[in-house]
Structure formats: structure tokens, C-alpha cells
């Protein structure tokens, strides 16, 4: 197991809510795991704890069977693509990526090589000197993804990486993620795009009300759910039709 979260509990005292209620999940090397669930299910809390942005009230994290004590030591191994465009709008794409790369102590020559390679891979090389504020939504999402890959992580955690973008950008990102996975990068990925999850995930975990209800491959889930023809049907059967706003 590359990464394992065991019995994670997270409570927010300010709102008196239990976001994660004894959640356990594992990601194998080379696996793409989709974390699906309605709004408020606890997906973002879980990935923020795994990425080291939040502290769990209880529970443990393991990296290759070893307990994670200092998250900073895993910074090189775990990449995060947050839901927000976590970039400086007044810096160009290259300046943003160069700054992020310096935070991983990557030397100048290597930085240049990696950034240019990633920009080319996601079709943004020509726009590298444009300010982020001048980018379209899809372009920003692609730069956001590159920023999470700059340190060449073994595990890429993504929080809705394709939300609010056009089909072309979505497809470009999906294709790139599949290519990346072929190179050995494992992924933990949250999305409301169930079709997308069905296409690229080896395994999905459906969460609701702070708990993981089920974990299986998309095919198995559809196969074992009566009257379900796709992952969306399975999702509705498991989480219900009630609105979660």
C-alpha cells in the first residue's frame, strides 16, 4: 500500500459537525482512486488531512506501511491540486510555476526543464508568459494541475480538478492524467463528474455523511447494483435523492 488512512476522525468545533467519522482508505501504487460523494460528505476534509493541510482529531496515516509523523517530509512525494486556483493572478504562468518549484528546492536548470515540459504536455507553453489573471478557466485549471506536479510526486491528490471548464480542457486533463498514471503516478481524486470517474478510476470510494459507504471498481459497483447502468445510478441508489445544499 502506497498510502493508507486508518480510522480518521475530524470534527469542526466551530460548526459542531463531524466531517469524518472513523474513515479508512488505502491507495495502492499505480492506482487511481476516486473519492465520490454529495456536497458535505467529507471528501475535501479527507484529502486535506492526507495532504497535510488539516490535522485529524484521531486516526493515523501511513506511507508505504510507515506511520507519517512529519508531513513536511512527504511534501516531495505528495502533490496537491486544490479545488481553488491556488496561483498568483498577477504573476505569469511561468513565474507562478517557477516560484512553486523554488519551494521544493529545485535548481534553476532543472526547474526550467520541468516547467517547460509540463507546459508543453498540457498545451500551455506558448502562453507561459501571460498573467494568470488573463487565462481562461480551463487554462487556469491546467496550470493548477501542473503546479501540483512540479515536484514529480508519487501520489497526486486532486480536488475536483475539472470543475467548471470546457469539454476540450476537461479531455486534455483526463488524457494527461491517464498518461501520467501509466508513468506510475498514483492518484486520489474527488469529483462530481461520475462519468469521468467511471472512465479513469481503477477504484472508487463513495462517501456520505463523513463515512465511506462502499469501495470497489466502477464496473463491480454497477454489476452489483440492481437496475444501475452507470456509476451515477449506483451513486443515487447509495446516497439517495435528497438535496445536500
Amino acid at each position: 500500500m502506497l498510502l493508507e488512512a486508518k480510522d480518521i476522525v475530524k470534527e469542526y468545533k466551530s460548526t459542531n459537525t463531524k466531517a469524518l467519522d472513523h474513515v479508512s482508505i488505502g491507495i495502492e501504487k499505480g492506482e487511481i482512486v476516486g473519492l465520490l460523494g454529495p456536497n458535505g460528505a467529507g471528501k475535501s476534509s479527507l484529502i486535506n488531512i492526507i495532504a497535510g493541510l488539516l490535522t485529524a482529531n484521531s486516526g493515523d496515516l501511513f506511507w508505504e506501511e510507515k506511520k507519517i509523523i512529519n508531513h513536511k517530509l512527504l511534501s516531495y512525494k505528495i502533490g496537491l491540486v486544490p479545488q481553488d486556483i491556488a496561483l498568483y493572478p498577477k504573476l505569469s504562468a511561468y513565474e507562478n510555476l517557477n516560484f512553486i518549484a523554488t519551494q521544493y528546492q529545485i535548481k534553476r536548470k532543472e526547474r526550467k526543464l520541468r516547467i517547460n515540459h509540463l507546459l508543453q504536455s498540457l498545451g500551455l507553453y506558448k502562453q507561459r508568459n501571460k498573467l494568470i489573471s488573463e487565462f481562461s478557466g480551463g487554462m487556469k485549471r491546467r496550470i493548477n494541475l501542473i503546479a501540483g506536479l512540479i515536484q514529480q510526486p508519487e501520489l497526486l491528490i486532486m480536488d475536483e480538478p475539472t470543475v467548471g471548464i470546457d469539454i476540450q480542457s476537461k479531455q486534455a486533463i483526463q488524457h494527461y492524467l491517464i498518461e501520467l498514471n501509466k508513468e506510475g503516478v498514483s492518484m486520489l481524486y474527488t469529483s462530481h463528474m461520475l462519468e469521468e470517474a467511471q472512465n479513469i478510476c481503477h477504484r472508487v470510494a463513495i462517501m456520505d455523511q463523513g463515512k465511506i459507504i462502499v469501495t470497489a471498481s466502477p464496473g463491480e459497483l454497477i454489476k452489483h447494483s440492481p437496475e444501475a447502468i452507470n456509476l451515477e445510478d449506483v451513486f443515487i441508489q447509495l446516497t439517495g435523492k435528497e438535496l445536500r445544499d
Partner: protein
Amino acid sequence: MIAFFGNIKKEVLLLLRDKAGLSFLFIMPIVLVVLMTLLQDKTIKKLQVEQLDIAVVNLDNGIVGKSILKGLKKMKIFHIHQQYHGDSLTLALAQKAVAKGNFQVGILIPPKSSIYTRRIISNEVRKQLPTIGTQIIPDSLLPMVDIQLFFDPIIKGSLRKALHSSLEQLMANIRTIIVFKSYTTTLQKITGKSNIGKFPLDRFSLSESEDLGDKSLKIPSSTQHNVPAWTVFAIFFMVIPLATQIITEREEGSLMRLKISPTPYSIPLIARICIYSLLAVIQAITLLLIGKYLLPLMGMQAFDIHGNYISFLILTLFIGLAAAAFGIAVGNIAKTHHQASVFGSISVVLLAAIGGIWVPTYMMPDSLLKIAQWSPLNWSLQGYYDIVLKADTINQLGGIILKLGLFFMLNLGIAVIYGKRKNT
């Protein structure tokens, strides 16, 4: 070091691309320095006067008028005028000229002041040493000798008091001479001896030793006040763009990238403090050059720091550190841009007002002076005053630098505590 220089580059780029923030930090203080120096120049010059221009309307032809004029001329602090635009001064003309600000003070010595003074004193002498054939007049029938003073309203209380006591002293001298004369004349009549001497007034003197080194009461000129004052204000105004940038980083998620990177949080913090402290030095040098070269072209006094460039730069660096830490604290305490800009601007303006930036502290009442001592802008301004007015070196600015250093540490501590709270 790669991470540190990465942060330095990022901060420089963000600062250079924040045109509104830069104009706040550079154009606003330049305009304020020029404008306020010009506006306050005349007023401060009046407060600074070491020689008062006095319009004297002398309607007395005797010893009183002559002695007052002679006595005032003898004192180096008064410049006596008895004419205005070629015309002899009348009471109306003198009042008009003082109201216009051409003279700071007007003095009216009424007609027959000498005759009346003599009459009053002789009457007193007669009471003490009655001689045959003389008549004592009741006090209620004696005339009044009323020398009138009128001031330009801008003249400070201390200068008014100085003139009052000078005149009192002159009048006392005149009275002493007349009293002596009256007694000797009367005694001569009584004793028949003719031995009228002169009162040895010149045997009594008041001498003044040199200043003992405390130059704290020296009043700065308009340039000496406004250039450092608006420099301090401009440096502390960095609180607003700095706090806003911290909130933007937090809201837009770029702070998250710093948190998940292996770089310790102290590195971006130190880089930010370095850049903003350097910015403070650039602001101060810019305003120093404006004071030194632009203000003289506009007829103002040139700003001079007596070659104490090292002291000036070190003090500025500490002011920059204090301001940067304050901005970082505001950015960590505030939850929104609105909160940061409102709290940042109000706090800086208030600290500037009580710190003697808008109105110099020597014009403040004592109660406000006590409050002013709590403003870091006041410490900073006092530091610059010490360099400009006393030509103090960095060794003599230790107290101020210590205060600014403590303010820096305190704010940094607050920023770290609030930052950690927001992260959990």
C-alpha cells in the same frame, strides 16, 4: 536559499505589479511632503521666530517711552518698528499691520505716560516724606499708566509671556529710577543738601551661561518636520497593501501551496519582511531626495541630515521592520480584505495623528503628549528629529531602535499566533 530567493523574487514581482499599492507608497507621500511643507512653512516660521517684529506706537515724549524703546532695542529678541510703509505708526495702523501678520506684536505707550508715572510716584513719596507746601492727591484721583499689547494670534504663549516679563522688567526699572529721583529731590528739599546721584541700575545684572547640551526644545522647520513625518507615514502605510496581499494569498489558495511545500513557513515570512523593509528604505531615500533637491527649488529650506546617512538608513530599516511586522499582524488578524484595509488605514492614520505626524508634538497639549509616546510613528519621527535637529549618530538612537525592535517582535508574535489559529 533557493526557496528564500524564490520568495524574494515573487514578492518583488507582486509589489511591482501592484500599481495602486505603489502609488500609495510613493506618490502619496511625495505629494504630502511637498504640499504640507508649503502649507506649514509660514506658520512654523512664526513659531520658530527667535526675533519678534514689534510695532511700537510711542505717544509719550518722556522717560517711559524712551526707556521702553531703548530697553527693547537692547534685548536681542525684539526688532523694533515705529514706521509702516514709510508712515509713522498710529494705533489703528499698528493693529492693522499686526492683524495682517506684518508684525508679531504691537505696543502702545499712551501719551503722558512719563508725566503720569512721575505724578503717581511723587504722590507716594509725599505720603512718606511730607514737606511744607505740598499736597497729597487721593489714589482714586491719580491717573492710570496703561501700556497696551496686542499680538498676532499665531504667537505662542511662551513668547507672549517673554514679552510681558520684559516689559514688566523695563517698567520696574523706570519706576525704580523715578522713585529714587523723587526721594532724592524730596530729601534734598528737607536736608538742603544737593547730592542728587544716579541710581546704579547697571550694577545689577542677570547673566546666562551657554546651553548645557539639551537641544530637545529646538523647534523643527517645516521641511525638518514634514519630510521625516511623511516618510514615517508612508512607511507605515505599507500595512495596507501588505495585509491585503496576505489575505489574498489566504483566500485565493496560494498560501496552501506554501503550507504543503517542504519550505518552512518562516522562509516566506522572512523574505516578505526583507522586501518590505527594503521598500521602506527606498521610500525614505526618495523622500530624502525630494526634501534635499525639490523643496529648495520651491523656495523651501533644503532637508539636511548632516551627513548621518548610516544612522538615517539604519533607523529607516528598523522603522520598516516595525511597519512590516504590523502589516503582517493585521493581515493575519483580519478575516477579509475589507477588514484589513479599514483597520489598517484607520490604525495608521490614528497612530499618525497622535504620533505628531499631522500636527507636530510641540504644538500638542501635555495630555496628548503622554498619549503620543505610545505611537510607534512618534518614536520613528523622534528618531528622525534626533538625526536632523541634534545630528545624533546611531549610538545615540539606541532607545528608539530598541522600542521599534520590541514593536517588531510583538507584532510578529501576534501574527504567528493568529496565523496558527487560522490554520487549524
